[in-house]
Structure formats: C-alpha cells, structure tokens
C-alpha cells in the first residue's frame, strides 16, 4: 500500500485562488479606525457648539448647569453611540465574509441602514416614527406662510406691563428637567397634539401665550407657537431671547436684591 501512496512531490498542484488585489494590503485595525472615529466625532461635537464647549468656557453655576446638560445629552446619545459602534463592527465583519460583489454589498448596506434607522427610531422617544403626528404637522408647516409675532423686548418690559400671560417652554423634556421657569408649561415639539391641548385646556383662546426656547438661535419656539395657534389659540407669540434672556433678568433681580440687603 505504501508504494501507492503519493509522495509529497507528486501531489498534484491545485491552483490557488489568487487573492483579490487591493489598493493596500493593510488589514483592518479596529483601534486605529475607532480612534479616528472618536477624534472625528469629538471634533465635530466641539465645532457644533456642544455643551462640551460651554463646559470649557463657562464658570461657576453656569458650568454646573452645562455639566448637567452634557450628562443629559450623553444619556440621550449613549444608545446612539452604541448603534454606531455596532454598525462599524458589522461592516468590519461583513467585509471578510459575505460582501464580495457590488450587488451583495449594496444589499447588505440597504439592510443594515434600514435596520439601523428602525432601531434608532425605536430607541429615541422624540423620534419621527414615535411622534408621527408632530412629524406630519412639521411637514405640512412648510406650506404655512403665516408668521408668528416675535417679541424681542427685554423680559422686564413684558413683566412691567402687568398683563396676564401664559409661558410655554418649547424645549424637549430632558432640557426642561434640568431647569424651567416657574409657572411655565411644557409643550415641546415631540408632545402629542392631544397632550398639548390637555396642558392648555384652562387657557382662554385669546389669552396671550408666550413661547420660549433656550436662546435666539433656537427655532423650536416658533414651530411650537405655530402648532399652538393651529389648535385655536389666537394670541401666540415667541419670546426670542429665550431662557438666556430670562436668566439675565433673574440675575439682574438677584443683584438688586443683594444690593438692597
């Protein structure tokens, strides 16, 4: 039997499948790529004026508030960051196993993007799919050419008029939980229309409603004011300086009280 056993030299040579040519032969280095991703995200975050930037620049109590806001945002974005990492790992795994042709890659990208989008919508309580009513209203709002009156006077002048008005906070709930003005009603854009009507059920149709957001850079207030007007409240306006303007007033008041004491 041994004489029939093929020798190593007589083993027929099987042509090896040539490795696909690549532009570079480097293997995926997860550490490097993740490092790039983190550096990119961090730099983009600072560039978009996140609370990270305000933490660096703020002092005293405002820094404490900035830290709270940053914690809220981190809590909000943690599941999203996890989704990013999972997508990245799935891409890394798929590149080795079942993405050889363009068609298969396109199919895989379509599936993963649809799944990731669906998971994202389910994870976020203020997402589009979970607030379809508000999303449809937002889409229809672009055809509404009527504008909301904008109030840019200082908060002290509004208070000095001594007319009753209703304050509405247009920011999302996590921001209102850090601090909100006394007496303000929470009616963010993610709120269902019925819920919003319930929160304003004791307000008269012609009672002045003043909607505010964080600052004059925020567009939520105008959109929430349009939404409130769409439900029947005729006297709605936007306080443009927002919380920052009101805090300035409160700081002035506190300084006056301290000086009087």
């Amino acid at each position, binding site marked *: 039997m041994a004489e029939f056993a093929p020798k190593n030299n007589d083993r027929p040579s099987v042509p090896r499948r040539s490795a696909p*040519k*690549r*532009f*570079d*032969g*480097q293997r*995926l*280095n997860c550490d*490097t*790529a993740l*490092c*790039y*991703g983190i550096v*990119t*995200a961090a*730099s*983009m*975050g600072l*560039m*978009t004026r996140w609370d990270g930037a305000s933490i660096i620049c703020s002092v005293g109590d405002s820094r404490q508030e900035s830290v709270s806001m940053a914690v809220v945002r981190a809590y909000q974005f943690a599941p*999203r960051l996890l989704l*990013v990492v999972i*997508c*990245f790992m799935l*891409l*890394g795994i798929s*590149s*080795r196993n079942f*993405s050889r042709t*363009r068609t298969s*890659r396109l199919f895989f*990208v379509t599936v*993963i*993007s*649809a799944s*990731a*989008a669906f998971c*994202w*919508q389910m994870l*976020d309580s*203020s*997402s*589009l*799919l979970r607030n*379809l009513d*508000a*999303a*449809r209203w*937002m*889409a*229809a*709002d*672009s055809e509404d050419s009527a504008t909301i009156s904008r109030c840019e006077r200082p908060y002290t002048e509004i208070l000095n008029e001594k007319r009753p008005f209703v304050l509405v906070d247009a920011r999302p709930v996590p921001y209102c939980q850090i601090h909100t003005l006394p007496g303000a009603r929470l009616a963010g*854009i*993610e709120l269902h229309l019925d819920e919003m009507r319930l929160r304003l059920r004791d307000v008269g149709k012609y009672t002045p409603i003043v909607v505010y957001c964080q600052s004059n*850079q925020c*567009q939520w207030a105008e*959109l929430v004011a349009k939404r409130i007007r769409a439900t029947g409240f005729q006297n709605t306006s936007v306080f443009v300086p927002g919380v920052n303007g009101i805090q300035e007033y409160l700081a002035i008041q506190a300084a006056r009280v301290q000086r009087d004491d």
Partner: protein
Amino acid sequence: MASRSIWPFKLQGFSEMIEQAYSYGFKGYWRLVILFASLCLVGAFFLSAWIHLGNQFFVVKAITDYKLVGTDAAIFLAALLPIVHLLLALMLLNHRWRQFGAELASALLLCYVFAQLSVLFRGNQVGCGCFGFEDSPIGLWTISRTSLLFVMAGTIALAYRKSLRP
C-alpha cells in the same frame, strides 16, 4: 520594502506618509490627496449625521421645503438619510469598503446637487439643511460645496479602479 498603504497604521504615521510622498513622487502625493479627500468626506458625513440625528423634525421640514417629495416620503427620508450618512462615513474609514462607500457617496451627492439646482431654478428661497437648520440658503455657496464633496468622492472611487492604481 516601503509600505504601499495610504492609510496610516498609526496616527503618528503621518510623517511616514510624507516620506513616502517624497519617495513615490507624484504617486505619493496622489495618495495624500486621496487621504485628505477621505478625511474631509468622513468629517462632513459625520457632522451631517450627528446634527440631523439630533433634530429629526427639522430634517423633515428641510426636505419638505425642497418641494420634491410628499409628506410621507419626506418623513421616510428624514429617518433614513442620517443613518446612510453615518454608514458612508464608516465605510470611508474602512479600507475594504472605501471604494464602494466613495461610489455610493458620489451618487448621493450628485442627487443633492441636482436637488439644489432644481430649487435654484424654481426660484425658491429655502435653507440647504445640509448641516442643520442654521445652514446657508441654497445658492452658489451650497451648490459649490456639495459639488466639491461630489468631486472628492468621485476621485476616491476612481483612484481605486485598477487602471489608475499607482
């Protein structure tokens, strides 16, 4: 043997890339151009995805303002496009997916250029919405910016074709 990779293995490998650029001549500088274009695209897509994922309702409004699709289609696109941007950024980071990601990115950016041109020709004054609600209104600047990103993505896709490999 000098490494043929244009993607630095470590962050401090950038100096090695510059040395390779000197040793490879034109082909070496070409690699730097491709790397720079990749990083620009990654940054742009990451920034866009991050901002849009934080303000999905504004994305709906921005898409509807273009007046190219209906309400439900705008909501669907607003939910999907930021994730697509994120995936494109991740693909451009991964050297195995870079060519395919660049091809997809160039197709998507070409669609954006045509959408902005259509808005411009119709004379509508709407914001671009590319990087948030505070972005510039659609005009020469936004179209140039999107076209530049399209050229970058197309350059990366072409650079990975066999005939153009250094």
